[in-house]
């Protein structure tokens, strides 16, 4: 069978960028292939920026941004988006918070109005704050406290790997911190971080650039100018000795393990970072990948396995410091130490012997497909471009990613594998407390 290399295709989404007088950066990417649009507003503030004693605040604030604004009563935002045939949401990440809608194209102006209105000022009231603290507590119960493996490893591994509050704390927050949050805290957070100069607006899909530009000027032009705050340096030194910890999950029926290693700065050293993104896929993407073949099929020491960049699995949307993570679930009575030893062995083997014929090319082809699939949705495009603009000033990088991934060489992947040494590793083990 020929080992012909699949040609890696690229997208050619057009990109228009401009900045309003108040500092709001705008990215437009028109595509008339379907009568739908994606609108994203991304603020350059996330979990890492929340104050000490206020764990979970960035996420709680995300909820408050939906609770009414200058011209909109509580519930109005939801009703206006959905009443225009659209869907909406928001999410809080380590380095940013996003708000977004997908809508039929005839709702463009309405979406811009809604986003501009809350950028001018959300309705931060005691009643809304108490209500959303309750809602967030239920969210944490659903996703963490009432289910097995809740928060594993994205909430449980950072405190092993990092020492400073911004990088190590629980981004969902403690109930104590959430309950003691005040309206004044929220107002202060808004003033500091939700400035026009700290935000990016992206609109994708069935738009006319000139018309969209005029509408954006009309709705966002008079949002008061406020500059972006200086972003603190969140850097931490790399690990110089292995760190390992464990905890009992009283709901979990089976053991699990996650390990992570620091990687180069994704923004300032993208060329050095990209090989790690490829490496994670070489190791874990599907039945033909190295670790699945070895650990799942041959050794049967794990039952499922994943590898990815960034604690939230967002390789192109994260700043330094971040990590490559591997996580695995084990069969009953599984030996976590043995799994870690095998990981080390396979990383060594990759670093020493290199890749097999065609292994890299097929992984890259698969990665290209994933990238293209994600950008097929107008909203996927708007969100990605907004974050790329915010963190790099380079939204068009989205078009380049499949090609850049395809250019990573075997030598780079081997070199990346060689750095994943046990002494640089942080790991966390879930001890099952819920075995039946």
């Amino acid at each position: 069978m020929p080992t012909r290399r699949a040609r890696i295709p690229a997208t050619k989404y057009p990109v228009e960028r401009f900045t309003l007088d108040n500092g709001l950066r705008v990215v437009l990417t028109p595509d008339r292939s379907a009568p739908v649009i994606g609108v994203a507003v991304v603020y350059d503030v996330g979990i890492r920026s929340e104050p000490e004693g206020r764990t979970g605040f960035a996420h709680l604030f995300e909820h408050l941004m939906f609770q009414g604004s200058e011209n909109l009563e509580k519930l109005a935002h939801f009703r206006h988006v959905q009443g225009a045939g659209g869907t909406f949401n928001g999410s809080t990440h380590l380095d940013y918070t996003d708000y977004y809608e997908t809508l039929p194209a005839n709702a463009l102006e309405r979406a811009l109005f809604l986003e501009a209105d809350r950028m001018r000022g959300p309705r931060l009231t005691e009643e809304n704050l108490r209500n959303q603290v309750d809602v967030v507590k239920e969210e944490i119960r659903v996703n963490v406290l009432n289910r097995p493996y809740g928060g594993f490893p994205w909430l449980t591994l950072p405190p092993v790997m990092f020492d400073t509050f911004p990088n190590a704390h629980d981004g969902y927050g403690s109930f104590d911190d959430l309950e003691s949050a005040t309206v004044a805290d929220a107002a202060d957070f808004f003033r500091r971080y939700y400035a026009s100069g700290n935000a990016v607006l992206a609109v994708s899909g069935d738009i006319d650039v000139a018309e969209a530009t005029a509408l954006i000027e009309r709705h966002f032009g008079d949002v008061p100018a406020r500059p972006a705050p200086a972003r603190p340096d969140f850097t931490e030194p790399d690990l110089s000795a292995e760190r390992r910890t464990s905890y009992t999950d009283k709901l979990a029926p089976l053991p699990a393990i996650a390990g992570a290693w620091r990687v180069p700065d994704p923004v300032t050293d993208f060329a050095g970072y990209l090989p790690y993104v490829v490496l994670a896929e070489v190791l874990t993407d599907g039945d033909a990948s190295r670790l699945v073949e070895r650990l799942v099929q041959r050794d049967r020491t794990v039952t499922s396995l994943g590898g990815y960049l960034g604690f939230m699995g967002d390789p192109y949307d994260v700043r330094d410091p971040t990590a490559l993570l591997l996580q695995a679930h084990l069969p009953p009575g599984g030996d976590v130490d043995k799994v870690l030893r095998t990981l080390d062995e396979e990383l060594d083997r990759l670093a020493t012997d290199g890749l097999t014929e065609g292994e890299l090319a097929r992984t890259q082809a698969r990665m290209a497909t994933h990238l293209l699939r994600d950008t097929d949705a107008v909203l996927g495009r708007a969100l990605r471009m907004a974050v790329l603009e915010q963190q790099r000033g380079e939204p068009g990088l989205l078009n380049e990613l499949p090609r850049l991934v395809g250019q990573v060489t075997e030598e780079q992947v081997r070199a990346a594998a060689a750095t994943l040494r046990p002494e640089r590793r942080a790991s966390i083990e879930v001890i099952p407390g819920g075995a039946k």
Partner: protein
Amino acid sequence: MTATAIVETGTRALPPLGPNRKLKLPTQAERTLANGLTVIAVRRPAVPLVELRLWMPFGRSHLARGAMLAQTILAGTQTHTATEIAAELQKVGGGLSAGVDPDRLMLSGAGLVTGLDRMLELLADVLTGATYPGDWVQTERDRLVDRIQVAQSQPAHLARTALLKRVYGRHPYATQTPDPDQVRAVRPAALRKLHAERVHPAGAVLVLVGDVQPDRALDAAEQALGGWRGDGHVAELPPAPPLEPGPLLLVDRPGSVQSSLRIALPAVPRTHPDHAALQLANLVFGGYFSSRWVENIREDKGYTYGPHSMVEHSVAGSVLVAAAEVATEVTAPALLETTYELGRLASLPVRPEELEQARQYALGTLQLGMSTQSGLASLTSAYAGNGLRLDFLAEHAARLAKATVADVAEAGARYLSPAKAVVVVLGDADRIAGPLSALTPVRTESA
């Protein structure tokens, strides 16, 4: 300083919507091959990919064997090992996965459009030559058992399991997850036999959506799959039984910090004349964020994070399911509010503006669902599995557009009445049985 100082009284008016754009169906083509396989190809050239969905009728198959067949159908053929299949698919940016439910066996995947022929070749190899090698079957058996064990520790899974059993009684839909012991008993020979009996082209539908010329995609499918033979048996599912209201079923999960509230209500298939009005009534009740239920128990009372209700369509029947995870201490109040909202919808007409909002949402999300290759592929496949084609979208949109307040009120009374509900709650019985009993008769079981 108070935060409300940031906000001044607003005077800006909400901009009106532009004119609605008409629902435009994509170019498509369809062919039924001599072996009975129907192929539908749809053009959406936005990215250079193609999505693939193969829907095979699979009703009344043995639960554990069916689950294991899905788990191992890609585990090797007469010409390729499992690893080779995965690697060959990867080469063209592709992947395939298999899943099973009480209606169908589904193979789905996506890849670079330049690899379509290769993906179809590999698909054909799997369909005609899957070998179910012993060592793989053993590994996958253990993995499936572990996965079931993990699922059984998830409240959402336990609540779903209890609801299905309560709703479907003796119908094949009642149990959808096999016992670990049944899985452990599955041998490769049984999988080969099941494959020979049930994995055949008659009645199956292959959907291809992407940057393809539909006729050319049909040719490619015919070329690759025309040799797939076999016409094993077809099993008809009996119609799903009607709901039988009764005492609230409380499933005990000691120590739960939340209760999982599940409510089943009657519903009708997509083609039923009431369906559009029922869909709108469901939206007003709890089918989207701007619904009465969400506004009540989340945005007003803070009892829950993500309540939602939806009409679920299966081949043998449809059912409306409402689901919410609520704090243990407010379980009974949450049920009270839920019953109140159902009763209100069943006994009072909706406000015209509520109907318009729900209607726009239903129409808009049709557009959104069609705007990606994967969305279009899943929609086309789900429709085809129920004997419908994409042009039904236009029909359905027309019904949504003309449903009146009276139609929706009638649907509310007919389908959403709390008297017709089957209610299951999973949670800490010690803490919630008493308060729930104050509202309704309760029967308690252990999880």
